[in-house]
């Protein structure tokens, strides 16, 4: 079985981003970028399935500009077999990403695609579901446990009220939640090996996918800042304030 893992390069989770003063977007120059944490979890899960002998090959793919190569190298350091870079200088939204991935799926014919549940920059939470729809495959989003047996996958999902377990025939799309696993720290020899692995490049135009979007960003604003309040001395003062000043209890 082949597993395809789409990964995204994002502003690191611990960077606090700033909205540009002209309100055209967020300042992403010269800030640390990382592999999206949910994608890291997806790569880890694919590798664990391979290490258990349930998959023969793990392929990572990213869609983006030349800087995304670094992201592919970090994914390769998990011991991934192959990496594919779908090249574009435009920042694509989930529908275009899903269309490009669907073309790649046609070509590579994986049995399982594991995406992250959400990219932590755009917070879309769409791509995996859209890809599943375009392929007419079943989906298991927000996975906290994945079990692969022969031709089916059983997935426990984190839902609002608790957990839900679904089973579906392969091929399928799974999207990772935070508690699916704890990604490994890649070992130095693997990092070195990852630097030398060839990356297959595909121009997005060659997949016949349009990069145009029907969404136009009009402006980006900073949210209203919350003012820090006061420190209270003790519980009595806190209760008094909550009762008489804030009137919330």
């Amino acid at each position, binding site marked *: 079985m082949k597993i395809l893992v789409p990964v995204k390069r994002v502003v690191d989770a611990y960077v*606090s*981003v700033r*909205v540009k003063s002209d309100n055209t977007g*967020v300042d992403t120059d010269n800030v640390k970028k990382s592999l999206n944490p*949910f994608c890291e979890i997806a790569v880890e899960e694919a590798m664990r399935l391979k290490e258990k002998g349930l998959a023969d090959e793990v392929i990572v793919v990213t869609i983006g500009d030349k800087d995304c190569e670094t992201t592919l190298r970090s994914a390769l350091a998990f011991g991934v077999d192959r990496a594919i870079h779908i090249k574009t200088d435009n920042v694509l939204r989930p*529908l275009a990403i899903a269309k490009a991935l669907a073309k790649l799926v046609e070509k590579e014919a994986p049995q399982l695609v594991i995406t992250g549940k*959400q990219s*932590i*920059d755009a*917070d*879309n*939470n769409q791509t*995996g*579901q859209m*890809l*599943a*729809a*375009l392929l007419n495959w*079943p*989906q*298991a*989003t*927000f996975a906290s446990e994945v079990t692969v047996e022969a031709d089916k996958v*059983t997935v426990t*999902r*984190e*839902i*609002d*009220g*608790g*957990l*839900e*377990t*679904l*089973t*579906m025939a392969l091929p399928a799309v799974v999207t990772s939640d*935070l508690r699916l696993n704890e990604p490994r720290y890649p070992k130095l020899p693997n990092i070195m090996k990852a630097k030398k692995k060839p990356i297959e490049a595909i121009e997005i135009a060659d997949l016949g996918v349009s990069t145009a*979007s*029907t969404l136009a*960003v*009009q402006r*980006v*604003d*900073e*949210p209203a800042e*919350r003012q*820090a*309040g*006061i*420190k*209270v001395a*003790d*519980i*009595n003062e*806190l*209760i008094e*304030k*909550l009762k008489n000043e*804030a009137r919330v*209890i």
Partner: protein
Amino acid sequence: MSVLVIAEHDNSELKSATLNAITAAKELGDVTVLVAGSGSQSVADAAAQVAGVSAVLHSDAAHYENGIAEELTPLVVSTAASFDYVITAATTFGKNLLPRVSALLDVEQISDVTSVVSADTFVHPVYAGNALETVQSSDAKKVLTIRTTAFEAAETTGGSASVEALAASDAVGTVTLVGRELTVSNRPELGAAEVIVSGGRGVGSAENFAIIEALADKLGAAVGASRAAVDAGYVPNDYQVGQTGKVVAPSLYIAIGISGAIQHLAGMKDSKVIVAINKDEDAPIFQVADYGLVADLFDVVPEMTGAL
């Protein structure tokens, strides 16, 4: 303009998140609620009572029982043909279903809408709520998930919509529900609670969480948690508040033993009043707290419970 809101329910009750989505929908046009379920007449009836709902479409079939996205998608896609907007609340149900619908409609979905600027322009948060993006959509049909905390819940009474039966789409049958483990609690639902008491890593253990729960029960509050507390197994997954958990905005949010990482703040900083109890006076949570108490939670939380 006509708006189709997909109802979220458990075949007996309409989920409160749908009421918030209906309020957003009302800003856009005439609201029709689609109830797809199995043995779900009471949900269709409840939806018809909601103030501002013009019509309810009710499709009842065994394969809609579990809210499986693969089963609901063909029905929603075909029903969407005669609407200008398709909307769900941005709950795990809506987030799971709607992108599937959106892709088949060949529309770019806008996630987590917090404000309707005009018929084609919407605001939604990105970067864990650190930026608000205003986007204009030129898609003929618009597909939106609604951040429930940004819109009041519609009144559950006062409406008198007609309920029209809708033929079910064919069963797809690719996905089977094995089981659900739902958190049972007498406390209010986290997403809709007026008061939330949340605990973090500082609480230290699952046993210690009883301190948080005792205070919550005194206040009639829901219990929430940081990711660190969930990861450490103190409480179930669905207690997580934050960028990648639940987004809440109660009248009162009490954060106990939580440092205030941006991912946590993303889920609670729109609360009306925030209280932070933390022994580290430099904890970032104090920067958003209306009332901060620098203290050991093991001393002051039981004291607070006792004093109320």
